[in-house]
């Protein structure tokens, strides 16, 4: 219904305007409806500027900045209508170390709300986990899953992998 979409949009937009500067340590962003008159079909535009930079189309942002902006939007929707669990598959892939830390800080702040399942290749993100599973394919084409400790998991994606390969 129009009313529900409008309410959701406003709530998510308000959350997004608050969350983006948290994730980027500054800057600002907002959502804009492309057609205010037609709430059932309007599109949603994202306007964003990282700290110190000028507001311009998100197409000009870097790969990492685009990813962090999308993460801010996903988390904003999630905070407005939380699900009991949230499954994230390698969303930290385009982020440099500083941004991975900010992403991880945000996950920590949301753990109270929900259960998180994170698939990652990133050693820092692994440190967030209360339990870690390593997936392997010793027999080609057949997956196995084992509980692993943090240092084992970090080795899995670290230097020792060439020895295994």
């Amino acid at each position, binding site marked *: 219904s129009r009313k529900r*979409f409008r*309410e*959701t*949009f406003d709530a*998510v937009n308000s959350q997004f305007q608050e969350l983006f500067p948290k994730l980027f340590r500054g800057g600002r962003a907002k959502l804009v409806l492309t057609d205010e008159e037609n709430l059932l*079909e*309007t*599109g*949603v*535009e*994202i306007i964003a500027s990282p700290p110190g930079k000028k507001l311009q189309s*998100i197409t000009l942002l870097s790969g990492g900045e685009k*990813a962090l*902006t999308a993460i801010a*939007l*996903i988390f904003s*929707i*999630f905070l*407005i*209508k939380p*699900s*009991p*669990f*949230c*499954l994230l*598959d*390698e*969303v930290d892939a*385009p982020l440099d170390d500083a941004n991975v830390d900010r992403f991880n800080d945000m996950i920590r702040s949301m*753990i109270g709300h929900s*259960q*998180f*399942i*994170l*698939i*990652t*290749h990133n050693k820092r993100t*692994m440190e*967030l*986990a*209360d*339990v*870690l*599973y390593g*997936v*392997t*394919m010793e*027999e*080609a*084409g*057949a*997956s196995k*899953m084992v509980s*692993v400790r943090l240092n084992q*998991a970090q080795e*899995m*994606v670290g230097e020792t*992998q060439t020895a*295994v*390969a």
Partner: protein
Amino acid sequence: MRLKSLELIGFKSFVDRTVIHFEEGVTGIVGPNGCGKSNVVDAIRWVMGEMSAKHLRGSDMQDVIFNGSETRQAMGMSQVYLTFDNSDGRAPADFSKYNEIQVGRRLYRSGESEYFINKTPCRLKDIIDLFLGTGVGTKAYSVVEQGMIGSIITAKPEDRRFFLEEAA
């Protein structure tokens, strides 16, 4: 309703029976390229009622059945069971008295499907309704698949509204 455990048999690369126990807080899944991590995500979406093979990277739903490797024969069936802890009592009326709720899905090469809630046969619709009732349903923003972050940015504004509609 928090995730308790996931069991896969014959689902994509998980040819042998595999069980994962989820913690409260954060569960991490790691491993090399192609070892099966995203297949776990596909399994969770599938057992929760995903109806489109494309959303599971396949062209037919049969693509989720283990189709053989150098050393193993293809399987005739794929099964996934997902168990939820319901001690917060959030499950819909019919199920609120259960401590645990398990949904199960099977697909045979013949194309036949079976669905289960707490081992009792049911319809796909019953599984989907169960999740809608709890607010757990496969909301796009609660299962963020590999590559979805990029598509939010490249999406046309008219397609992007879909994410917000799911929360409305």
